């Protein structure tokens, strides 16, 4: 199967596919960001971004997501050095970081709804929820994926050090993280310009 085959470029097929998917995802988020820029000042009702964004809270959740990316790097490292406990521990930290980020987002969305900004309140709200919601969905998929990897490792123990699988999941996780840095900049920081 593809997993054990030599390739022309020397890059594993699955890793190559993930890079391709990331290229595609760039255009996905690019479209959402363009839509957000078009719509962000055109909300006719409800609160606007500068009125409700809480930069302190979002900075904290951004830091949390960044740290989970660091944990991913360490998990891959310990997979390659075949230190099972450390690898599992850091995979656990990645999952925890992702889950905490989702918690922040859950709280933020609830908070905004309480302030009167729902999905259908204004086009600003629609574009905001669609953009950050799409990113949140990507984080959720990542959490599910890395949890599955962790469970596989817990069940198979020393017999399972599949660094390609962890690297591919890591690529995805870092990409989701990079997207968030861009979103944090264009959604939350551009308010101050």
């Amino acid at each position, binding site marked *: *199967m*593809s997993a054990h085959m030599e*390739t*022309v*470029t020397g*890059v594993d*097929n699955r890793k*190559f*596919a993930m890079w*391709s*998917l990331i*290229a*595609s*995802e760039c*255009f*996905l988020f*690019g*479209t*959402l960001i363009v*839509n957000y820029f*078009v*719509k962000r000042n*055109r*909300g*006719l009702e409800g609160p606007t971004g500068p009125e409700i964004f809480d930069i302190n809270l979002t900075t904290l959740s951004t830091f949390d997501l960044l740290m989970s990316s660091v944990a991913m790097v360490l998990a891959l490292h310990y997979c390659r050095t075949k230190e099972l406990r450390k690898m599992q521990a850091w995979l656990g930290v990645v999952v925890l970081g992702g889950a905490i980020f989702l918690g922040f987002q859950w709280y933020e969305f609830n908070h905004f709804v309480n302030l009167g900004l729902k*999905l*259908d309140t*204004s*086009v*600003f709200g*629609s*574009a905001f929820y*669609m953009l950050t919601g799409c990113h949140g969905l990507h984080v959720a998929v990542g959490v599910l994926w890395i949890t*599955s990897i962790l469970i596989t490792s817990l069940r198979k123990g020393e017999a399972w050090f599949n660094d390609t699988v962890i690297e591919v999941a890591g690529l995805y996780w870092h990409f989701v993280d990079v997207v968030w840095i861009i979103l944090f900049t264009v959604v939350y920081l551009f308010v101050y310009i």
Partner: protein
Amino acid sequence: MSSANSQQTGLWSWITTVDHKKIGIMYALAAFFFLVVGGAEAILMRTQLLVPNNDFITARTFNSMVTMHGTTMIFLVVMPLSAAFFNYLTPLMIGARDVAFPRLNALSFWIFLFGGILLNFGFFIDQVPRGGWFGYANLTSLQYTPDLSVDFWAMGLQVVGLASLIASVNFFVTILNMRCKGMTLLKMPMFMWTNLVTQVLLMLSLPVITIALLMVTFDRHFGTGFFIPGEGGSVILWQHLFWVFGHPEVYILILPAMGIVSEILTTFSKKPLFGYSVMVYSSCAIGFLGFAVWAHHMFTTGLGPWATTFFSAATMLIAVPTGVKIFNWISTVWGGRIRFTTANLFALSFVAMFTFGGLSGIMHSSAPIDSQHQDTYFVVAHFHYVLYGGAVMALFGGIYYWFPKVTGRFMDETMGKIQFWLYMIGFNVTFFPMHFLGVQGMPRRNYTYAVDQGWDLWNWVASVGAYATAVGGIVFAINFFWSLKKGAKAEGDAWNGRTLEWTIPSPPHEYNFGIEPTVTRTDDFWYQKYSEDGKKLQPPKPEKYDPNDIHLPGPSYWPIILAAGITVAASGFFVQGIGLYVSLLGIAVVVVSVYGWSFEEA
């Protein structure tokens, strides 16, 4: 894993197959089915327009026919037929045993098939999409289309698009990662190059339409106003998003055809492709520039002088690599020992018809002229010359060319030539007069016209041409089934070919190549048969191998289940009341099959 000797047959083997050849055949059959549907829609429209003030079909039905003819022909005929060639030929041409991800390949096909059915589901409940193939906002809003037709359209395209996205990643990786020994990028057959560029275009343009369609769905189901001006939304944004996808899409349709034509012309001229590397660079240039011309579809929206100038210039620029290609094809044929087989006739007609369509395309690049042509039959004539005279003719050429490889039998040349001339004449009789109708001011998508408008003659002529084409289609169908049973037997190297697929038997073994091939140059197979000065060489004896040593990925039923889950999840939007639960059920099936898939021993 299954051993190469255990040939499987029967319906179940097709449903669970991960063999790229079987998947390719299924893509082709599905495309033929939708070709009949899309063709019938065209015939209904031409019959309505046969005479002025006709009441053969209603205005509403006519709108549906316009919409579904365009959507079907683009997404369910030309794209899957190209995908059929990609599937069948990519591993054969690069000397591989299968694609990089065989099960994902099966998944792509099943998602495509179910998405195609979803797209056409409106026919069963008389709510056929009727907002045009480009579904301009705000025709698609709940206010102007309260029934479900837009949901079928948006969700159907969403699902079909997902199939293309998965396939594009798969083939991108396959071409770059699975080439046989010695086949560097610039030694690949031309078709593999246009294939590669097509996959890049698909990968980068599909996410844009995914988001745009999602926004339409949100507008209709969740109360947002992305495309509703009254709520601060932007109608023009839809046009931008649609054409950022839609223009690369045009090249997604034509690039595979260009590759197919390059293969056919070289074989039947017995000459190498003229200016191979320039052809490669032209394909890449077309792919790159294809992303910088979308707004030429929108000159009449008032983009302002700077944007108009830019997009006008970029559009003229893209004619350069395209023109280079046309001259290269002519130079390829020039001085060759040409065999006028049916396949070659179709390929040659592609070059001529595509040039016609390209010329009227350059006319459109001038914004002032475009403003006059916008929404007239001139535009209809233009894009049918490139997509029908171009892409479809090339695809038919490809069918005649590779039919012996797939089935081991030739298609009948006499019937083939009858079909070719019916198509060639019928096509030109239908679409050439549309140039006249266009400059006379006949608008597109109008279901009828009055007696005194001066459009009677050319409309009548165009309709007669369409009927001739339909007869050609019937001839093709007869030829197809007759040749399957009674066609002349074909050898492995059926046409004295140049590329790797002709080195193996027709039809190929399940494992493609007994011994993985090695190449040293472009058209390596040709130079094993002939020396540089054209003398016939003694071909090397084939090496012995044991088919039992070749291991292939086993069949899997997860792709079809996963595709069904995705389709059920999407169809939740059509069901009143319990829609959410239907979607959740679909998502549950998706989750289960993703895990089933992961734990399956591949």
